[in-house]
């Protein structure tokens, strides 16, 4: 795997060590008054950006932290200090 990711605790490591946790969609919405459609969108709909997106990763074969980082989905490379599209 060409991808490397920078764990906030362990530093830059091989992509094999991490598990993808999806796009960063913000915290869970409040439940009261939430329509089923809005909930379903939050859970299942993705932006699928062709470019830089902010996303969650889990350092599974490492320290076990969940963190966000920016990745260019077209080159599958982590981008540092990127402007998220």
């Amino acid at each position: 795997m060409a991808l490397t990711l920078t764990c906030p605790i362990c530093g830059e490591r091989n992509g094999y060590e991490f598990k993808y946790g999806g796009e960063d969609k913000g915290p869970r919405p409040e439940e009261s008054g939430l329509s089923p459609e809005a909930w379903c969108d939050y859970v299942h709909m993705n932006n699928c950006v062709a470019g830089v997106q902010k996303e969650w990763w889990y350092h599974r074969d490492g320290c076990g932290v969940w963190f966000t980082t920016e990745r260019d989905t077209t080159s599958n490379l982590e981008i540092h200090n990127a402007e998220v599209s």
Partner: protein
Amino acid sequence: MMNRITNLPTLKIDPSKAVSLKYHDIPYQGCAGDTVATALYAGGVRIFGRSLKYHRPRGLYSLDGECSNTCMEIDAIPNERSENLPARDGMVVREQNVKGSAEHDKLSFIDKLDWAMPAGFYYHTMHKPAALWPLAMKQIRKAAGLGRLSPDFRQTGRFDEIFPSTEVCVIGGGPSGMQAALSAAEQGLRVILLEARPWLGGFYDYRTVQDDHAVPLYERGRKLAEKVSAHPGIRVLTHTSLVGTYNNGLVTAFRRGSSEDSFAERYIEIRAKSVVVATGCIERPLLFENNERPGVMQAGCAHRLLNTFGILPGKTAVFAVGHDLGLEAALDLHDQGVNIACIADLRTEGQNPDLLKALESRDITYQPGQTALEAHGKKLLTGVVLGSMDGSSQKTLPCDLLVASAGLTPVSGPLTINKGSVAYDAHTGSFLPDKLPENTRVAGRILGLGDPEAIEASGHLAGLQAAQDCGLDSAADLQKAEQALAELPGPEKGTDFVIGPVSGRKSFICFDEDTTIKNIKQAINKGFDVPELIKRFTSAGTGPGQGGIPDHNLPLFTALYQGSAQESVRPTNRRPPLTPIFLSTYAGRNHDMAKRTPMHDRQKQDGGIFRRLGVWRRARYFSEDLSCRQEVENVRSNVGIFDGSTLGKFRIHGPDCLKALDRVFVSDMHKVKQGRIKYTAMCNEDGCVIDDGVITKMGENDYFFTTSTGRAGATVEWIRYHTRYEGRDFHMVNLTDAFGVINLSGPNARKVIEKVVDQDISNEALPFSGVKGFSIGQNVEVFVMRLGFVGELSYEIHVPSSYMESVWDLLLEAGQEFGIMNFGVEAQNVLRMEKGHIILGQESEQRTNLLDVHLGFLWHRDKPEAKTVGSLALKQAEQDPDRLKLVGLKMQEAKVPGDGCVIVDESRIRGYVCTIRKSFSVDGIVGLALVEGPLAKPGSVVSIYEDECKGNLLKADVVPLPFYDPEGARMKA
């Protein structure tokens, strides 16, 4: 050795060490250092196999694995590149794609039927009528193709992988690659140097011409190689072929092991900060009629046969070349006794005058501006027609060796595979690197250079550039190196020759796929206008050689035929693997890694039959009776002991731990009390149940919970994921391996355990759903939960792993008088099924939610502030009457269907059987199933389809659950 020249300083063979192989049951003697093909060639073999489509005889051509000509079956492995594979004693070699032998192939008549097989022949002949297809395909498969793998073949040997990381990775161990490695290493960087051949040296290694200091190039190469090998910062990997290059500095390769290595083939995944591509050149094949007749070979092939392997490639040779390397080969061959009948050189200018003088002094006929137009010979080469570029002044010369080469072509695969590009360069007549991938440098002949000093200077520069990629400030050195290179001779003039005036019917542009110039014309006439499309339509370049032969000629010929500028075309893209690699190498060692519980050995002694379950190996049965009758009945009537150590066990503590638990568990976690256990479950966002277990409070903000065996590995990740936005303050400890679990079940369980614990364990002191700490044998602290998974009086004893065996022994001893016996995973499965208790993953699948398996009572629907995972989805699912529901089944007949059998009606599938067994505790065959809502009412009858039922569906009644002890009196006793 009789047939070898043994006094050459360039030799890489050891004539004193014989290696014996068998081909056609005839022993062939090679020597140490030989490849399979050179050993056979020395023994007189000229035809190594037959071509894919036309069954034309094929021989040694490139000696670098650029085509499938010498692919052979070696020790039962087909498609081995015999020209690259080192010969080993005892190898058994067979030719491929022949009916008969390579020499006498009964299918060689197909060569005359080429008119019936134009480009794209399969596409436009083989689709109508459709019924004919399978028949035709079978016949074609028989006649065409490469080697065959026996279905009985089992590959042996060790296949492993390494993941080195480095600052600089240099691809290619020729002069520029070695110099780049040295220059980078001298900057204090770590370097990995990859070389496909078994030794360093590249194209210096077999050349005897002298540099400006009168040092022969092979010696210059060896000196460089010595320096490289001695440098502690350089790790040299020879006999290592490139698989691919990728972004972010990833380079993958593989290494074939020699007899001394611990591996048969090793996968190497290198991560580098900078990559130097110094792959040099291969030769551009010369296009003419019958240009692949055995006896025709490239200049480097003939030269290396002589200088590296000590073999005279022929007796009378004609040369048709377009580069000085061809002239060098002619001189060396002449000096070792080969009769050079004529040298036709494509070039009329740009030759090295020293070489011309040397030819003249040896009286070798030299014809500039001439080339080969046709090779003669039925099987082997017998002569060649030479002529001018326009076809005039033709003459035929008899010969048994034709050294044919149009010039050089850079090996740019490592660049184009990684989104780099090449562009046509008119001066060199070849495709030179244009856009380079990030942090990638190039050096040597790939730039068109030919002068040794310039090649090494470019390597030095690339090494410094790589150092710059690694963050070293070497601006001053870089400038000096750039200047030095600029003062040396630049790229060498090459020829723009493509093809002479020939029909092209038997001029092969791709040997692997039997693609001729005529086929390319047909494809272009059909409108396939760019090389990428022509490649796909004619399959040129799609064979094992991966485009090594057609790579350069295809775009050039396309431009020529279309009358467009050569700048307008470029070679087709490469894809990994650049060199064929065993699938076993990708698969790797394939360790069967499994976890063992602390009781593994003891259970094995007791006759346990183990099965893989997730990451564990567990004792599934304790006798050959797979229905486990004795184990089941002993739990129901006496007491059984079960190793439940695989259970997930977790401690969670910290000020926010309740909030975290409330997020993932469906129940109200505030109700979890000390001294009591609570059964609860976890759902995913869709309300589908993913885990169940028990939880108890250990103290303020301190809880202990269990998960199912399969979820233990994902639990910490899951809880942290679902609390990731809030920054909750809690900690989790995975105690799965720290504690073992003994499950003591059966009516006699209390009698056993009260003999070993230090406190009262009566039903009042530790009732059902209670949990309490005890001491066993005075000093082992355990805690005991009263559960009832199997439906009997049951104690789950959590013991520090290291004490497991001791506690187990104490319990066995105490239980002897009460008939204590092991029971395994299968007996537990039957016992809990009778009790109607589910195992997630068995009585659930991806879509099964909490309500479907009747666990809705666990769900505290009114804790919106906790935002419980799955809660919203469950509220939606409540409205849906059509979901599959868990039911009890009782078979109407005495046949046990398999787990997973589908439940059907006349038209469709209505559900499936989860677990079904012959029950010894209740009468009959009972089980659990998931069926559609309308069928789920007690009293309905379902039909089960089984593979062996032959149309007679099995009938079962839907009955209430549980089957056994519905009031739960036994487990609460």
